[in-house]
């Protein structure tokens, strides 16, 4: 048995360390360390509740909009209001822009460069992949950055800037959208669609979104058009569809609210079998986190965050969120499994894996961009975009949304008009949670078990694929 410490584990958002026990040619067990603590929950205590819309987005620069929307929903719940229909549509457009752009950033800048490594030099695909996907220098990044930046003009127009907008409020948005602006947004979307269909998918978005089986997916890959098929071919060569299985308990808070629910449904799934979700049974265990406190794991409404500066017991700043005492995987794959997309369901039939996590993100891009076009046409420019309400002196509310990386929750308690408690559980808090009181590892810790380690490897490449398949966001994880 030997030990490996992998860090700084980069091309993830924030700082990450992974500690491995290696038995010969594979990982025997893993511990995930989140090494940075900033303490947003403590900062928010005692503040005017509206200040959450300034402070909480700054938890994370990559899913800032998701943080804003979580905070806005928690405030709205406490005020007993809902955003006006126009406000919800604009919120969804801004949110989808962030999420789609995050999926692209992840694929091109964080995930793909690992296949350019020398360890794959003997592979027939290596030289083409190395010039296309080289970190910073590859043609793929150069092709992606300008259309991505232009796509973000949607947020610039609707929400002022990215990241860290304050336009997303409990009752809607702070800016109306005029008819000519709707037309401009439509043009931005079609420009972005053209890029996606030409370089990324190599075909129409709708056709990809309709893929309903692994066989049809293999067919798509065999056309050898677009960067996605390049990935699928590499994946089949390396067996990424068998790598990184994490327990298959998939949780989604539901993505993109509308009047009667969500575009991607809220729920829980054990493998492909739907389960009843009771968010009241979420708790955070701190047995292996550098946190003070005792007693059983608490629901976030009653949660505490008291860092233990001596870092005496435990191995990470990350708490361990559990649902009914069990870990859950969150993210695009979980979201599409819970939403019962046929391809997602088939992909997890033999267990969630690296390939499935990547493909699920592309399913979402292919579903969301056409959906954004539909949302645009539902905007009624003559109507109001926001409603206002006062905050009661005593209230509580939760904001449960789906960030690019999965389920994000803000739980707010207001007393005497001020924030009395504010607890946040971010997607990567779920995925990269440490062991809990009963010794159950978190999803990534599970997914790394049995990962192959080649002779002489100090930062095993299989571990890199598995870790990055979750698209971790470490600044959110601990916050």
């Amino acid at each position, binding site marked *: 048995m030997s030990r490996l410490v992998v860090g700084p*584990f*980069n091309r993830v958002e924030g700082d990450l360390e992974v500690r491995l026990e290696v038995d010969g040619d594979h990982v025997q067990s893993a511990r995930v360390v989140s090494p940075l603590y*900033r*303490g947003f929950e403590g*900062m928010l205590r005692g503040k005017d509740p509206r200040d959450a819309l300034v402070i909480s987005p700054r938890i994370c620069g990559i899913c800032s909009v998701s943080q804003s929307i979580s905070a806005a929903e928690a405030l709205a719940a406490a005020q007993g209001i809902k955003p006006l229909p126009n406000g919800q549509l604009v919120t969804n457009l801004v949110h989808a822009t962030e999420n789609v752009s995050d999926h692209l950033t992840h694929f091109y800048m964080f995930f793909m460069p690992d296949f350019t490594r020398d360890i794959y030099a003997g592979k027939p695909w290596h030289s083409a992949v190395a010039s296309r996907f080289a970190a910073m220098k590859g043609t793929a990044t150069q092709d992606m950055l300008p259309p991505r*930046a232009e796509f973000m003009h949607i947020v610039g127009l609707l929400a*002022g800037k*990215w*990241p860290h907008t304050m336009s997303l409020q409990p009752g809607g948005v702070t800016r109306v959208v005029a008819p000519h602006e709707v037309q401009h947004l439509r043009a931005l979307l079609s420009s972005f669609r053209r890029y996606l269909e030409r370089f990324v998918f190599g075909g129409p978005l709708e056709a990809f979104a309709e893929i309903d089986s692994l066989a049809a997916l293999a067919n798509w890959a065999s056309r050898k058009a677009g960067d996605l098929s390049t990935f699928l071919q590499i994946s089949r060569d390396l067996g990424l569809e068998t790598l990184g299985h994490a327990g298959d308990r998939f949780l989604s808070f539901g993505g993109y609210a509308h009047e009667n629910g969500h575009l991607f449904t809220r729920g829980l799934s054990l493998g492909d079998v739907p389960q009843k979700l009771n968010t009241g049974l979420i708790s955070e265990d701190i047995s292996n986190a550098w946190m003070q406190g005792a007693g059983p794991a608490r629901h976030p409404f009653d949660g505490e965050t008291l860092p233990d500066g001596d870092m005496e017991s435990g191995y990470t700043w990350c708490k361990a969120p559990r649902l009914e005492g069990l870990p859950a995987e969150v993210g695009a794959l979980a979201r599409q499994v819970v939403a019962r997309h046929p391809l997602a369901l088939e992909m997890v039939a033999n267990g969630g894996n690296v390939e499935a996590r990547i493909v699920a993100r592309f399913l979402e891009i292919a579903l969301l961009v056409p959906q954004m076009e539909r949302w645009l046409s539902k905007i009624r420019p003559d109507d109001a*975009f926001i409603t206002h309400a006062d905050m009661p002196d005593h209230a509580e509310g939760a904001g449960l949304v789906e960030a690019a990386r999965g389920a994000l929750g803000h739980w707010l308690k207001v007393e005497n008009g001020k924030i009395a408690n504010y607890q946040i559980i971010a997607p990567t808090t779920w995925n990269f949670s440490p062991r809990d009181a009963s010794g159950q590892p978190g999803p990534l810790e599970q997914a790394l078990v049995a990962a192959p380690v080649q002779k002489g490897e100090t930062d095993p490449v299989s571990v890199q694929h598995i870790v990055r398949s979750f698209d971790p966001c470490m600044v959110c994880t601990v916050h």
Partner: protein
Amino acid sequence: MSGNRKNLLWLQSGGCGGCTLSLICAESPGFLTAFEAAGINILWHPALSLETGREASAIIDDILSGRILLDILCLEGSVMMGPNGSGRFHMMAGSGEPMKDIIARLATKARHVVGVGSCAAFGGITTTGDNAVKACGLGFDGELKGGLLGAGFADESGLPVVNIPGCPVHPDWVTQTLSQLSAGEMRPDDLDEFGRPHAISGTLVHHGCSRNEFYEYKASATRLCEIGCMMENLGCKGTQAAGDCNKRAWNGSGSCISGGYPCIACTEPGFEEPGHPFVQTPKIAGIPVGLPTDMPKAWFVALSSLSKAATPKRLRQNAVSDRVVVFPKRKKKGSHR
């Protein structure tokens, strides 16, 4: 160092990564092109580089041992000093060492040290509340000189820490400041008292704001989403905050004001603790407390009562509407007065 290329190392500590993500949105040109044109070679960046784990640590070791020359050290995020001065709130992954110590050692090797974003410059959002984690900037702790590197810090060319403020930074502020440094053209005189390039802080957010006409007549918005000036009621600090945000578009066409919400002065030290709710202007006897930095209060009071009395109906009504409801009237051609 190869030829005239300047080596840049980018590190992240107590921040959100949003400054890097803002940078990635750079346009005309994109940031990679801008760096290339400026002869900047990225030795390592936590979000962008291939090297991970031992490969990444090796680059840092090579800088510390002098095998690689470091021209520009950029830090994004605050320096984490707590708990009890130990820096354990951020131990650099894989190193077992507090990040603050690694940053301090690298700073002695770098020809220039740059704080990217208000976190690295002043402490920023991470210091909100009672700053329980004892975060600070590289060269400042809020408004006070000091921070990690101390009040007397100067690089070999006599520059203090060069601070690119903002939460997040505008991508152009980063590419332009780094290009100027790379070209060896940044002089101490180019920086203001907070180490910010005058190129950024010489303009106020208020300059070029589309609501200037409302401001002149004190025609004020009362609630978010109304198009009047947000200074009187909604906490706008545009008249006191550094930045050309309303002259240089964000993400194509945006700015905080064009998005419909007030400037919170995120480019200024201490913005995170305004002493009042961010979207509410504190007032004493009905007069906003935070007046334009260089305007005497008596003037303001006199001017604003005068201009309020003279506010045209168009501005009075539009100010409290979510869109223009009264349009400007044009004089017909040929009509005189």
